[in-house]
């Protein structure tokens, strides 16, 4: 739920980093916190357990700059990834403008990724939000690990695409991240399919963190027009 204040010419948007436990959601925020000019960001608030597992959420406000004379401020939230915390996880999605799904690339985490993605769809649906119609980006994290599953397999399991019935949108859109592939395309059967933009990342080193933030915030700002 973006909040537009015409009096102060400010736009406030809410981004939520979702995904399985220990996938790197908090690490994404910590990297943004560490790299953004302190004047352009607020405090990083973490409601975590003593073992640094997110209990409720992490929160980081970031000023991205001015667009069309409006100051754009993004509120970055993470959710607790552990299955147990679904009640609080759902609360954080309230009023979300854009979602980043941080998947753990390790092969043995595939099940946890799938479960979390399903949970995201379910929780969004409970609020009446349609994930296929709001800014949504998938990040494949931990690409540097030897047991990382191939992106092709992750895509097939987590981001196979959804049907696009609106004929006005039936236009091939190439995927800038993966040459030769598409974000919106037609199947041989004639059906049109769209999938979420994807970034590969190694969040602990910061690789892909800002690319992901850029893609999702761009989609959010464009959706305001």
């Amino acid at each position, binding site marked *: 739920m973006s909040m*537009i204040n015409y009096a102060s010419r400010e736009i406030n948007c809410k981004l939520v980093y979702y995904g399985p436990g220990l996938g790197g959601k908090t690490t994404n925020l910590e990297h943004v916190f560490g790299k953004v000019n302190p004047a352009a960001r607020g405090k990083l608030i973490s409601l975590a357990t003593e073992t640094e597992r997110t209990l409720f959420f992490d929160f980081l406000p970031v000023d991205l700059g001015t*667009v069309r004379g409006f100051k754009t401020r993004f*509120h970055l939230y993470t959710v607790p990834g552990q299955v147990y915390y679904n009640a609080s996880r759902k609360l954080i999605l309230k009023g979300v403008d854009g979602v980043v799904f941080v998947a753990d690339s390790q092969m043995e985490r595939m099940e946890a990724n799938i479960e979390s993605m399903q949970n995201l769809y379910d929780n969004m649906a409970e609020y009446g939000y349609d994930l296929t119609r709001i800014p949504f980006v998938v990040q494949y994290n931990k690409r540097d690990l030897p047991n990382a599953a191939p992106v092709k397999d992750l895509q097939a399991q987590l981001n196979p695409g959804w049907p696009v019935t609106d004929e006005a949108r039936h236009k091939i859109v190439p995927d800038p991240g993966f040459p030769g592939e598409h974000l919106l395309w037609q199947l041989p059967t004639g059906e049109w399919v769209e999938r979420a933009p994807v970034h590969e990342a190694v969040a602990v080193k910061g690789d892909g963190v800002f690319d992901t933030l850029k893609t999702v915030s761009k989609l959010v700002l*464009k959706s305001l027009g």
Partner: protein
Amino acid sequence: MPGASSWSFQESDFKAISERMNALLRETNVKSLLLVDRTGQVVANVGEPPTFDPQAFASLTAADFSANDQLAKMIGEHEFSSLFHQGEKESMYLADVAHRVILVALFDNRTTLGMVRLKVKTTVEELTRLFEAMFSRTGTEQPKLEGFASQEAEDEIDKLFG
């Protein structure tokens, strides 16, 4: 509804809200008042400038209210329309406005909980009317911002990230 609902307010709305909050400030002698929306964004604040980060405060306030809403449902209540957190010196009283925003009063021993509770109740009723009128006028669907779909806007967005 495809995505999350949004809202926007004009300068006149902002003025009316601030005036009402300033009146409450004078009537109760609270230190400061904040208006926070349910997604954790600061809408307005009056009184002593906060010594804390208002955005962090707003996100925690919204989370606090949401968590308590769920607790209310668990015990068979529809909601808790107000919350009170008592400290040794500083206390806070939070009240729901039109199910969309939260009015937070920060106060110390210069006033009393009874006084705050009493006066906030009237203000909440007035603010609820203000917000409901505002929502019915502007709607709560995604407001379209002029020029944001243009190429110029896209170039500006690209520049934000260098």
